[in-house]
């Protein structure tokens, strides 16, 4: 009989600080940090692919180091501090670049009905750099790439290209946006100002005012 022969039951109580918030949960002894993040805490930004520590899609920071969360038992993370992609924007390390207006890009309201359009107040410099270089294609590996890059920049704030290649060697990208991902990390590590979002979307800042709700005809006219 293996551990899997038992259904997961409320198991061992652990404490974790996840994205700055203390979480107390009971976890099955055989459950990984990945399972707890995704299934128990519903932090689904961390992705699941190979489950053997080869693809890097599940990379998170545990006490400041990047780990494959599929290879860490949740109980091993007891007392630890975890940062997932959802917490990346809030990190103090990179100077944040404010997004214009409310930051609302075009949203995907029809995909599944459950997408959180969550008004992200700002993105971290690394995230902005990923957008600026077009590093995210399908996007599935990107949370892991970002967390590995974050760990790399903490260790090595100004890496060479070779150091970036090595630092991201454990994160597979099948769209193979490696060039743009590497460029993004180097850009984030540089002193270069990141272009404002409006410039990146093809609109010189200020050339286009936002939709004017006052201009919208009053629809409250009594129906006939």
């Amino acid at each position, binding site marked *: 009989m293996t551990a899997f*022969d038992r259904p997961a039951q409320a198991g061992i109580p652990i404490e974790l600080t996840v994205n700055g918030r203390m979480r107390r949960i009971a976890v099955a002894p055989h459950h990984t940090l990945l399972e707890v993040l995704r299934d128990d805490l519903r932090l689904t930004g961390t992705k699941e692919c190979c489950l053997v520590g080869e693809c890097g899609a599940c990379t998170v920071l545990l006490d400041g180091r990047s780990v494959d969360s599929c290879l860490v038992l949740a109980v091993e993370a007891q007392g630890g501090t975890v940062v997932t992609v959802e917490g990346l924007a809030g990190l103090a390390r990179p100077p944040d670049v404010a997004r214009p207006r409310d930051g*609302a890009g*075009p949203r995907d309201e029809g995909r599944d009905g459950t997408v959180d359009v969550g008004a992200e107040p700002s993105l971290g410099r690394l995230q902005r750099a990923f957008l600026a270089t077009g590093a995210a294609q399908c996007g599935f590996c990107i949370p892991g790439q970002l967390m590995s890059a974050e760990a790399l920049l903490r260790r090595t704030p100004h890496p060479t290209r070779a150091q970036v290649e090595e630092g991201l060697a454990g994160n597979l990208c099948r769209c193979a946006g490696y060039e743009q991902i590497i460029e993004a990390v180097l850009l984030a590590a540089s002193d270069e100002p990141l272009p404002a979002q409006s410039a990146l979307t093809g609109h010189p800042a200020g050339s286009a005012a936002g939709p004017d709700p006052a201009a919208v005809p009053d629809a409250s006219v009594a129906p006939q």
Partner: protein
Amino acid sequence: MNGLIGSPVERVGGPERVTGAQAYVADLAIAGALQVKLVTVDAARARIIRIDPTAALAVPGVRCVFTDADLPHPMPRFGPQFRDRPVLATGQTTYHGDPVAAVAAETADAAAAGAALVHVEYETLPAVTSIAAALAPDAPLVQDPAIRPGDPLSGSNVLREHQYAWGDLEKAEAEAEVVVEGAYTFPMVTQFAIEPHAFVAAPNGDGIAMWSSIQHPYWLQRVIASLLELPLAKVRVHAPDPGGAFGGKQHAKYEPLLAFMARRLGRPVRLVLSLEETFQAVRRGASEVHVRTGFRRDGTLVFRDIEANYLIGAYADIADRTVAKGAYTSAGPYRTPAVRIVGRSVLSNTVPSTAFRGFGNPQQIWAVESNMNEAAELLGIDPLELRLRNLPERGETFIPGDTPADGRWADAVRRAAEMIDWQQPRPAGRGRGLAVGLKSGPTTGLSYSTVRLLADGSIVIYAGTSDMGQGARTIFAQIAALELGAPLEWVTVVMGDTAAVPYDQQTSASRSSVLMGNAVLNACRQVQARIREMAARLEAVDEAAVTVDRGTVTIGERRLPIRDVLVRGLGRLGGEVIGLGESRKEAEPDHPLGGTAAFYEFNCTAVEVEVDRATGDLRVVRHVTVSDVGRALNPGQVRGQDEGAAIMGLGHTLMEHYILDEVGRIRNLGAIDYRIPTSMDLPTSIESDVIENGDGPGPYGAKGMSEGALLPISPAVAAAVRDATGTIIRDLPLSPERVWRALHADGSAAPIRDEVLAR
């Protein structure tokens, strides 16, 4: 071109992708869903004697062990080309990984525990897992002739044989002064999307709701409706953006099984494949291609005679179409007076092969372009010059009855040569190689799009395309923003829900910028026409006095933004202006492929490599890739697609292949034993460029372009290895082992059988 089209605007959907907010199928919370785990047997082919669910059902939380006995009889079958694939194996399994049962349980743990305890009694049967074995006269039949009624080939493992020919081959053979001949093999490789396939089915009133990482939600709707005997309107398919697809998510896999389970259990059921299970769900067809080409001494192509056998799997999926399409253009993008092509799809007891970026063409191009490079050497003509001598001009027919050459292809070849300093002496110890690739785009297509211009001038686009990383969402937003005069930030693109978006045939063949792009453009034109009517009414002028062009309304000397006319025109009740756009590529029943090419993808790739003679290791030092894209609507995304395709192609060129044992089981399932390129495997430098002449059928002259840069990599690299070492290798991948063996076999390629790993 302007601020929107032709600019590398940021990806629409980008912020979600860098914050973790993008929800893929496995990320969705489906209330009350049972978790499903598949049960397989450890054999390539087996007769199922008995399935005993007792122990599995005793696991707390296990609700059901679903087998063929729970399905209608006869077993319902499905497939995009032939209805050959059973919803669940019945009586026997036909490839390693063919599920025989599925366990549904309250938790993933319980489902896994239950699946491990389902006792399957089976007898291993002899399996055919290579082309030679499948074509042997006494080979066991992979498919029961009963599921191929009326098929004259049903007594063999050949599913279809496709023949194409033009010109007088006999006469051409007599005219040829040099004939170059060779056989080339291409291994089984897998799509390896980082998002493993995920599926959910849920009872939904008097119908069913599906969630799938599928590329073609409307195909899936049809399959499920047909199997469950439901009206299309009662099947709602949600298709969130796939986390990489590459063709492997085009067609239904386990969705039918889940749909039957959900109906039986009255509850939602959810299946997320492991990466290993994706290897057993999708792959590319392996091939052996024999090429014989005749030339005049001056390098003029005289004839091509090609025989291609593709090892497809146990079920056809869309694989036979990849064979038909790959074989059809296999003579290459050249003026070839006489051609004979035979392409066979050969069934085997292996994972069903399916669409994979390039769709049957990389296998052919590996062979034919390698043959072209060998010919250049024999003829004493520079490989660059040999191509230029035989490429057609734009507008010239090169496949009789099909779309003429639709680009200045020679420009792409010259540009690639220039980028890699082809004419300069190469550094010591390095070799250079060059090859071209051609792929026929979609042969038929139908896309609708609805575009709503809302009362404040913002826009909602509805499109049935799947944005799987190629950036379709961004392209559609760019088009509508430009045409209707709104900033990109005001555009929302809704996709992936058959209850919301109008019909789209499919997301494949690099079609979406062209076919759906035109549908979006046409919808915008309808909106513009309504704005024109409004302006004429408001200004009390004749409509003829009003023009609407790219967001601006012109009335005589006055120029107004569309939004000004819109707000006044809608009046006190508000409302919106709705356009419905359609884009069709009609079928042509007499055409061998059922339709001519909507466009061609053309790419030239050139590489410079270093070969380590001691280890057989290759290093691609320089990699240049040039695609004819018509118009790069978003150069940033075009670069992402070109370089991404290039790196993916380096995977099958240098390292990827399934390894089977002597009884046909896959021995390298998963990420540890099957390597794909990492950030450490990149060319030292990679550069991409595009040829833009606005000569495509898509919006603003665009062509589809997402596959081209993968097509010619293998022959370019092999030519560079030949150039560096003098060794010709005709089998992929060019792994260190293979290269080392070739280098140490006095220049002749040592045959390595990937299919059989000696114990």
